[in-house]
């Protein structure tokens, strides 16, 4: 029998790997044992979960606060609220960012009343008076000005940064909201004060100006970005019931009408200690727990928010959205799949790895290397979130002169192969080996560890799942991969988006001349494919 060089390498690699896989498992067990000694978890009487991880290499620490509420929790008509609130959490508290909170509180109530009056007039369907609207807006601006006199802008971040905070930021996804920074460890108590105070006592100061800032964020990430526009249309097409179909930053109309009162309601419901996990990693000790508890334990308790009732119903026919844009073509398709608690979760990870991870991956070897039709091609699990039933998605960037349709055909060929033929031993083993190594590589910095410990503690009720997930990964079989592929990669479960090039329409108005019309939205068409099943 003739054996090709490639096959020989593969066979060799295989033998080596059986030996390595046990060694890899031991390394992970060793690391878990080390973490057992370094990690302390305490659920405070008010329900907040506090995690400390000692890593005393340098006198610094990083933290991650995860609030188990993201933009999927935005109430109807208020998309973008969770993210808007996240911006608010940097605006200070009753003690920070104000020269006189008692007076400011009164002034802010007047701002809210003035805005409400304006808003009520603005939303009138019949009989809206332009004069009255103008007058109400002027009154609102006067009230805003009155409130602003008490504001010390950005004082909260100023205190943190002057005390050495770096990497200070926050992120809101559809699933949750995370706050984080790193600081010298002699500021641990200062941090505990700042963080607990903004969780318990945020003040919606300068809310409506910040809303303008967030509108700019929307313009940057969605409206003015070809990929942003495509993703927004794709998700809105793929989901009919679940809020995963809404853009996290919010629809323009809804975002532009969010109020400080709505943000307060959101805070009261979701920023309760029982819904919050805080992890601190670095030069910290279990002895610091008492001090931390003093601050975080003081956040008033509240009922844990009730879980969401909406579950995305099964898709019954293929759906698509075709966008004609003056940009180069793109292709994105997705298949609905269960949330992260599914017993098959690791199987999806295996498919992602085999399809997408590096130059040995199937999509790279086929679409990029062999056929030369794509600049990149990937399949990935957990889009646009993981907490609720989500999608396994494929994204491909065609090479010059190649079309989205070619991407689609080539991806479907690879999917078909996965459904009809077992993956190789080498591929499956490679997935498991890389999962172990990636896990270990992720333990090299305080910020990364803080985020992971908090996330796993929150999602599984035990940070050890960060390590123990490898058992589920090790259990994945070839049969699992074929079974899952056949289950979800079917046309009726598919939504796709294509971006196709269309030359820009040149408006008559040239440089500088004002145009009476607002910018046109990207052209898009949503077409249910009835007959695709």
């Amino acid at each position: 029998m003739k054996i090709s060089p490639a096959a020989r390498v593969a066979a060799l690699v295989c033998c080596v790997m059986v030996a390595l896989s046990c060694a890899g498992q031991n390394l992970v067990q060793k690391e878990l044992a080390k973490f057992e000694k370094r990690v302390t978890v305490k659920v405070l009487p008010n329900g907040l979960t506090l995690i400390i991880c000692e890593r005393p290499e340098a006198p610094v620490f990083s933290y991650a606060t995860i609030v188990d509420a993201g933009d999927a929790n935005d109430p109807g008509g208020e998309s973008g609220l969770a993210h808007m609130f996240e911006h608010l959490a940097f605006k200070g508290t009753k003690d920070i960012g104000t020269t006189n909170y008692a007076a400011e509180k009164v002034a802010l109530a007047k701002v809210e009343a003035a805005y409400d009056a304006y808003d009520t007039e603005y939303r009138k369907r019949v009989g809206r008076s332009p004069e009255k609207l103008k007058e109400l807006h002027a009154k609102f601006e006067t009230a805003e000005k009155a409130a602003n006199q008490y504001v010390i802008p950005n004082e909260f971040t100023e205190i943190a940064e002057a005390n050495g905070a770096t990497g200070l930021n926050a992120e809101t996804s559809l699933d949750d909201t995370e706050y984080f920074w790193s600081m010298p460890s002699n500021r641990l108590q200062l941090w505990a004060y700042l963080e607990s105070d903004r969780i318990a006592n945020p003040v919606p100061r300068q809310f409506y100006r910040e809303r303008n800032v967030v509108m700019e964020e929307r313009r940057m990430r969605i409206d003015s970005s070809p990929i942003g526009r495509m993703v927004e249309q794709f998700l809105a097409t793929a989901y009919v019931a679940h809020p995963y179909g809404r853009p996290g930053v919010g629809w323009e109309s809804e975002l532009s009408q969010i109020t400080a009162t709505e943000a307060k309601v959101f805070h009261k419901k979701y920023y309760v200690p029982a819904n919050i996990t805080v992890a601190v990693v670095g030069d910290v000790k279990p002895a610091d727990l008492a001090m931390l508890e003093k601050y975080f334990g003081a956040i008033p308790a509240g009922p844990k928010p009730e879980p969401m009732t909406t579950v995305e119903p099964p898709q019954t026919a293929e759906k698509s959205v075709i966008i004609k844009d003056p940009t180069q073509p793109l292709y994105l398709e997705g298949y609905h799949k269960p949330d992260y608690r599914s017993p098959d979760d690791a199987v999806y990870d295996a498919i992602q790895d085999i399809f997408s991870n590096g130059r040995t991956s199937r999509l790279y070897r086929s679409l990029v290397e062999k056929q030369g039709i794509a600049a990149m091609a990937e399949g990935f699990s957990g889009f646009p979130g993981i907490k609720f039933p989500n999608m396994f998605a494929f994204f491909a960037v065609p090479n010059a002169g190649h079309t989205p349709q070619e991407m689609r055909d080539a991806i479907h060929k690879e999917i078909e192969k996965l459904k009809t033929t077992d993956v190789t031993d080498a591929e499956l083993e490679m997935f498991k080996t890389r999962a172990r190594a990636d896990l270990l590589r992720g333990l090299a910095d305080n910020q990364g560890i803080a985020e992971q410990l908090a996330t796993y503690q929150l999602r599984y009720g035990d940070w050890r799942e960060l390590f123990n997930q490898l058992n589920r990964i090790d259990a994945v079989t070839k049969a699992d991969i074929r079974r899952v592929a056949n289950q979800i990669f079917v046309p009726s479960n598919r939504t796709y988006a294509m971006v196709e090039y269309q030359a820009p329409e040149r408006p008559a108005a040239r440089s500088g001349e004002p145009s009476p019309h607002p910018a046109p939205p990207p052209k898009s068409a949503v077409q249910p494919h009835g007959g695709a099943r």
Partner: protein
Amino acid sequence: MNWKRSTALLALAFTFCVGPAIAQEATVVIPPDAKKLQPPAKWEKIPVPPLHAFHPQQPTRIELKNGLVILLQPDHELPFINGTINIRGGARDVPEAKTGLIGIYGDAWRTSGTAKHNGDQLDDILEAMAAKVETGGDIDSTSLSWSCLTKDENQVFGIAVDLLEHPVFNEQKLRLAQQQAVAGIVRRNDDASSVAQRVAAQLVYGKDSPYTRLPQISTVMGITLDDLNAWHTKTLTASNMIVSVSGDFDPATMEKSLRAAFEDLPRGAAWPKPDTEFAGPTPGVYAVDKSDVNQSNIWIVGLGTERNNPDYYALSVMNEIFSGGFGSRLFQDVRTKLGLAYSVGGAYGASFDHPGVFYTAASTKSVSTVDATKAMLAEIHELKTKPFTPAELASAKDQVLNSFIFHYDSKDKVLAQATQLEFYGYPADFLAKYRAGIEAVTLADVERVAKKYIDPSKLAVLIVGNEAHYGTPLTALDLGPVHPVDITIPMPAAMRQRMGGAGSE
């Protein structure tokens, strides 16, 4: 479960955060005088004990007889070994007709492989061990790096050395790299913010400068295997290389194996620094019209300085006050007070061996383009006219000094710093000097450098946006006529036709 979203491009579109990536280093703000009238605030009463003593482990420096420098940084926390070989010479050093060579070289070097194992075989062998050997190219260097579990070091390092010394560049992989490069070229006008960043740099350095010229389809497709081999032979000399290794190894054993691998390399000639002129931008207003956006990217740019400038410390403090973070003048005004932008930033840039870029950038809705530009110009102007206050100075210095430890709080960071200083021939105590330098900066120093270096009459204003929707014409900036910038992608006619006329926007 997978927490890391694999597609960075898509992640951009569905994670939203309070600060854009542009605000790199944080900063501090002027506490308004109002605060001083109040009794001490709660946070002011919180004790800040002295920071625990900390002596970061410095890497061991070994210079071989042939001039090759080795930096070793053992770190036994995790069972990995990571190495990087930095080689002098990069994109700024290739002839203009070969623009794009370094990108292609960085790709094809690794994907081609060696006589022993071609690139595809290397992929199989390495990925099965969850190991990496990668090559890449940059503006002034190329590099080869490896990363593996401790137990695989012998095999993976062997592959790295084989690839370093015996690459066999392959026609097919060259073509793949060219194809990838062309895919990037035809897409380079799709994203308005990257168009703005690119054109802004070209305004400062010049369109044909070795630092900013663009690879074109013609230059990329003209690159041959001979070009790759010639570049490799030319740069692969011992005195031109720095080898940095960190991780779980015994230093004596590691030194032995590195010596064995590199001691016989020829010394080679010292790599010459390119002789480039930096005239700075031609002042004026420049515009790129993009019909598919509703937000303008505004960049106001001029020439910056070099890091060995004795005024670097005072300029760093000025940067903090001007645009260092949430509390900076620029952020406070354009974002917090005016609500005109989400993304806002700037710096009087200092590079290691050539002048950096002085930039002020923001993105704002089309209709407030002129207002935002005016606000940004006013902030720049105020660097010279609005006196810096003792509170601003104290805040800025606190910020730099209290966060200073994050320059060296891990062994990897210390090694990366040391490597960078070695590469550019800076003294090893540069970081310590930097700290002392910042501490010594006075209000008079900041006033002096602002007056000396900030010259609004030497700046170019670039606006990439949807012209039809500005409302107020750009001529209202009172900076003279608006110069349209042509960003058409040069493309063979047949190709443009096949792509439906794309690339001309």
